[in-house]
């Protein structure tokens, strides 16, 4: 039996190749993501172990606010100079040095533009001199307050050289000018450690600029005397300093710091795997279809097997064996391809964040296990239904010229209705009763299955209607009839395309609704100018609070307000807080009224919270909140007002004084209200002049602000579309596959048509129409389902500021047009095959 199976498998290798290809692509994605993230994470390991290679023990203050990995980095409390002295005096300590190193130092390059970074921090630090790791490449270390050294990579990126006078932006948001007196690099001829940009000042300058005050350090770098065990030293230092400090050996610190990045990578990996999952989900449709068609075509062969004594179980086994073989072969190829893709992407990433030296391409066992498990499971699951159907073929079918009767669609339709209803319920709970993301995702998945099950019933009328468009020509009409003749096959092929199109449409609906909602809320704001930075690194650029004060003095300006934001610990939980220079201006800008209490005034110990946060955390006017900011001590604030959620700034708005204890004690956003009737253009240049010294910060009008926000959304949208393109590509393979199999199945029919005079071009047109009808049908389904899902999400998020539901008609139109194009492309090979058919051979074909 096994031999018979393998023989028949080999005989139909081309047929199965395409279904295998879907698995290959999916598995490739899975393996690729694992290889990419593993390679990157080991590269991070090596960076950090390098960075701490000269450190036996490192001491930092405990962060006052522990920030979760996804929201950013926790800012450790600064270490006073006295602690450095304490440590230096301990026995076994050869050297203890206070280090300043904080993210947020931006170099202004020779072209006047800020040198940005994609991910790696931009460190401002004190110069500690050379060691085995850090090496001066040119010049010397800084000795005067207006001197700096920078790492070679940064010098190259900014096209600056030793001796140049350059601008530097730091946390205090004022541009200062320094002379570059040297450049440095790292052992092994590296120009940076993992793409990090570094600007090193003298101690007091670094302290003032990066920590806000002299006499403070970020950490203490301890080197033990020869023969002192770092672990012992750590105990000793910890004992001497007490509980407020975080004391770690160099190794521990390297592992901790790397872990932080790895957690971020893990999250990234999960996103990639999510997209791989979608692609494989679509792949299942494709494989089900292939196996179903193959089983239908093998009816006689399988019946013959039954007739000569094979049991049902053996027939099922035979089909499943095929699935296993395909699954294994596809997994092998997919894993190999995935390793290649992962390596390629890792290299790209390394080039992007130049200076990141890859720690060699690694294939973690989990990549292999996941790839094979996924490849096999997907193929086998998909083959089960066709296998069962194969086992029900009666032996008598071997003797008959079987015209497979149209099986009634009632069962599948009922099932589809039930599944769709369940999906609706799940989505309802997930979206409206805050059931969480998993419920929503499950609901979406179920919805796809439900709609896919309903598709055969829908296909008759819809395909008929679509086909009408092409019925003016004979090939068109034949194509339409062909696409309608096997509703299950058409349906499953179309459903595969539906999934991808539905997801992009759904995301598109959410994005376009977000855009119009944002545009609407910006439009309705009584703030004609917005002061805002262009983010080039992990933290938003900031500007000095005096900018707002000076803006108020500009003629024609009625009012101005600045906003600083940070993450804080409020009643023990992480919360997004803001501090505004003048709370009264906010409701005036938004034209909002308090949900409760007073939001037009704010005392020094009062907090204004938004309605959603208040409900979530059970706060009311009069509640007392204990707030721990990044710096300083805990402080109590009394809730004095509750603002409407979509017309508030941040979850919790603290008074202006709180800003001093923020990680960035400067403004990241400003609103300027003009006097009625003052033209924006007449005021804008004067406000712009106020931030002229900071190339990262700009003054923009409402239209530009809206545009920026929607550009950002567009970028996200494009990324999602690119990732979903894989799912759509697999669906296209599905169409190719279905058509190719259909062409083979209808060889004799095609021969007949050719014999009675259908030309080659007309034959190709016939196949193309069939493909286009199927793909447009799939896209229509996708657009409807995706539009519905997107609308449901938008409606559910109405309280979060999704005030408008906008359908992106032009994008939807593009999707449909693309689907038609996709149909044409998918038809190319099958139609060429059909046109090449030898007429005589086709007629004699059995």
């Amino acid at each position: 039996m096994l031999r018979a199976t393998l023989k028949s498998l080999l005989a139909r290798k081309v047929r199965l190749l395409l279904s295998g290809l879907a698995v290959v692509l999916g598995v490739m994605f899975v393996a690729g993501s694992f290889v990419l993230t593993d390679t990157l994470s080991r590269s991070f390991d090596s960076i950090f172990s390098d960075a701490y290679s000269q450190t036996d023990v490192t001491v930092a203050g405990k962060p006052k606010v522990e920030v979760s990995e996804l929201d950013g980095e926790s800012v450790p409390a600064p270490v006073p100079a006295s602690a450095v002295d304490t440590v230096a005096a301990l026995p076994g300590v050869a050297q203890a040095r206070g280090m300043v190193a904080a993210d947020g130092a931006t170099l202004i390059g020779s072209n006047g533009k800020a040198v940005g970074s994609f991910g790696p921090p931009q460190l401002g630090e004190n110069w500690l001199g050379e060691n085995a790791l850090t090496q001066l490449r040119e010049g010397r270390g800084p000795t005067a307050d207006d001197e700096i050294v920078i790492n070679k990579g940064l010098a190259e990126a900014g096209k600056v050289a030793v001796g140049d006078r350059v601008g530097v932006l730091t946390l205090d948001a004022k541009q200062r000018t320094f002379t570059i007196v040297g450049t440095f690099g790292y052992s092994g001829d590296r120009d940076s450690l993992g793409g990090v940009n570094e600007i090193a000042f003298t101690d007091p300058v670094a302290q003032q600029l990066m920590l806000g005050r002299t006499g403070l350090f970020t950490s203490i770098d301890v080197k033990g005397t020869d023969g002192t065990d770092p672990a012992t030293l750590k105990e000793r230092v910890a004992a001497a300093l007490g509980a407020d400090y975080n004391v770690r050996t160099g190794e521990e610190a390297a592992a901790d710091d790397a872990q932080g990045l790895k957690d971020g990578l893990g999250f990234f990996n999960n996103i990639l795997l999510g997209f791989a999952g979608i692609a494989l989900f679509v792949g299942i449709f494709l494989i089900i279809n292939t196996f179903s068609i193959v089983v239908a075509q093998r009816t006689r062969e399988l019946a013959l097997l039954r007739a000569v004594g094979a049991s049902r179980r053996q027939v099922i086994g035979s089909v499943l064996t095929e699935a296993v073989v395909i699954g294994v072969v596809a997994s092998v190829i997919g894993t190999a391809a995935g390793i290649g893709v992962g390596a390629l992407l890792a290299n790209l990433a390394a080039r992007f964040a130049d200076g990141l030296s890859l720690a060699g391409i690694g294939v973690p066992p989990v990549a292999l296990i996941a790839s094979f498990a996924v490849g096999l499971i997907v193929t086998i699951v998909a083959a089960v239904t066709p296998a069962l159907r194969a086992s029900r073929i009666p032996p008598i079918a071997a003797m008959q010229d079987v015209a497979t009767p149209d099986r009634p669609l009632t069962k599948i339709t009922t099932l589809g209705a039930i599944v769709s209803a369940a999906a609706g319920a799940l989505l309802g709970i997930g979206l409206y009763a805050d059931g969480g993301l998993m419920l929503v995702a499950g609901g979406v998945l179920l919805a796809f299955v439900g709609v896919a099950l309903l598709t055969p019933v829908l296909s008759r009328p819809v395909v008929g209607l679509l086909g009408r468009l092409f019925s003016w020509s004979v090939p068109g009409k034949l194509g339409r009839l062909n696409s309608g003749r096997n509703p299950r096959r058409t349906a499953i092929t179309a459903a595969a395309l539906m999934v991808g199109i539905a997801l992009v449409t759904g995301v598109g609906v959410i994005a376009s609704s977000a855009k119009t909602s944002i545009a609407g809320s910006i439009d309705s704001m009584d703030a004609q100018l917005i002061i805002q930075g262009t983010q080039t690194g992990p933290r938003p650029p900031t500007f000095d609070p005096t900018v707002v004060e000076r803006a108020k003095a500009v003629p024609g300006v009625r009012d101005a307000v600045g906003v600083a934001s940070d993450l804080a610990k409020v009643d023990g939980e992480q919360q997004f807080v803001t501090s505004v220079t003048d709370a009264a201006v906010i409701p005036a800008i938004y034209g909002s009224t308090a949900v409760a209490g007073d939001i037009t005034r704010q005392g020094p110990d009062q907090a204004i919270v938004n309605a959603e946060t208040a409900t979530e955390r059970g706060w009311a006017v009069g509640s007392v909140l204990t707030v721990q900011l990044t710096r300083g001590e805990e402080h109590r604030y009394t809730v004095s007002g509750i603002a409407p959620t979509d017309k508030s700034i941040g979850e919790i708005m603290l008074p202006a004084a709180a800003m001093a204890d923020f990680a960035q004690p400067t403004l990241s956003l400003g609103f300027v209200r003009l006097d009625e009737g003052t033209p924006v253009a007449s005021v804008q240049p004067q406000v712009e002049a106020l931030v002229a010294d900071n190339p990262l910060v700009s003054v923009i009008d409402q239209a530009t602000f809206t545009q920026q926000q929607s550009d950002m959304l567009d970028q996200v949208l494009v990324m999602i579309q690119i990732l979903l393109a894989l799912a759509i590509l697999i669906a296209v393979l599905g169409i190719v596959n279905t058509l190719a199999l259909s062409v083979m199945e209808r060889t004799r029919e095609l021969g007949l048509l050719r014999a009675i005079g259908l030309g080659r071009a007309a034959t190709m047109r016939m196949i193309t129409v069939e493909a286009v009808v199927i793909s447009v049908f799939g896209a229509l389904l996708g657009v409807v389902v995706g539009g519905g899902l997107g609308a449901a999400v938008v409606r559910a998020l109405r309280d979060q500021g999704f005030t408008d539901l906008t359908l992106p008609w032009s994008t939807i139109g593009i999707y449909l047009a693309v689907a038609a194009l996709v149909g044409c492309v998918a038809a190319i090979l099958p139609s060429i095959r059909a046109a090449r058919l030898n007429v005589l051979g086709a007629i004699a074909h059995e």
Partner: protein
Amino acid sequence: MTASDPVAARADDVWKVYGSGEAEVIALRGVSVTFQRGVFTAIMGPSGSGKSTLMHCLAGLDSVTRGEVRIGETTVTGLGDAGLTRLRRDKVGFIFQQFNLLPTLSAKENILLPLAIAGRKPDDAWFDTVIRTVGLQDRLEHRPAQLSGGQQQRVACARALVARPEVIFADEPTGNLDSRSGADVLGFLRDSVRQHGQTIVMVTHDPVAASYADRVIFLADGAVVDELHDPSPDMVLDRMKKLDAPAEVER
């Protein structure tokens, strides 16, 4: 095509060789034969004698190794795919042993398909005549799956007739039918020749079927060996026996 030209199709010294070297099979060895307009010709011969091959070559479904084939005034030999397609569309009709119809189309649509493909308008009167001749008046909207084998074959005949081609080629059109339905089909094939001047070339194994023809050509081993006019089943059977005998002696 001129009405005065009495020849609907002809083969001139046609050779057909399959394969080469050891596997070489000479299916036709210098066949020359002329099919007169308005004549019903049957081709007979033992299995493997080259009947189907000859028909395929005549109809432009297969190329000849040597020699020339003409349909009406068109030289089939040397035509490219487009030319052959046009030839089949405009000058030739086919009836196969089985699988003659498209399952997605109704009987009527199947019948009108060649005209639709050619973009020609059906002649309503002629269509009615054909339908009446084949007796399908109340089956026109049925799909092939809802028709019996005999009915399907009648639809196939109607399809071949309705376009009024120069020649209709039929390869064992009654091979899959019982004698009753076979007789029906043969009957109106003959009628279409007698009443409407249609030219038909039919390959068959059945002496009774052959007796419906005006003329029978006998093939053996790739060559025309005999010919009969206005045959009766007995005459045909008689000739066939003679043809088979030497073949058996050879073995």
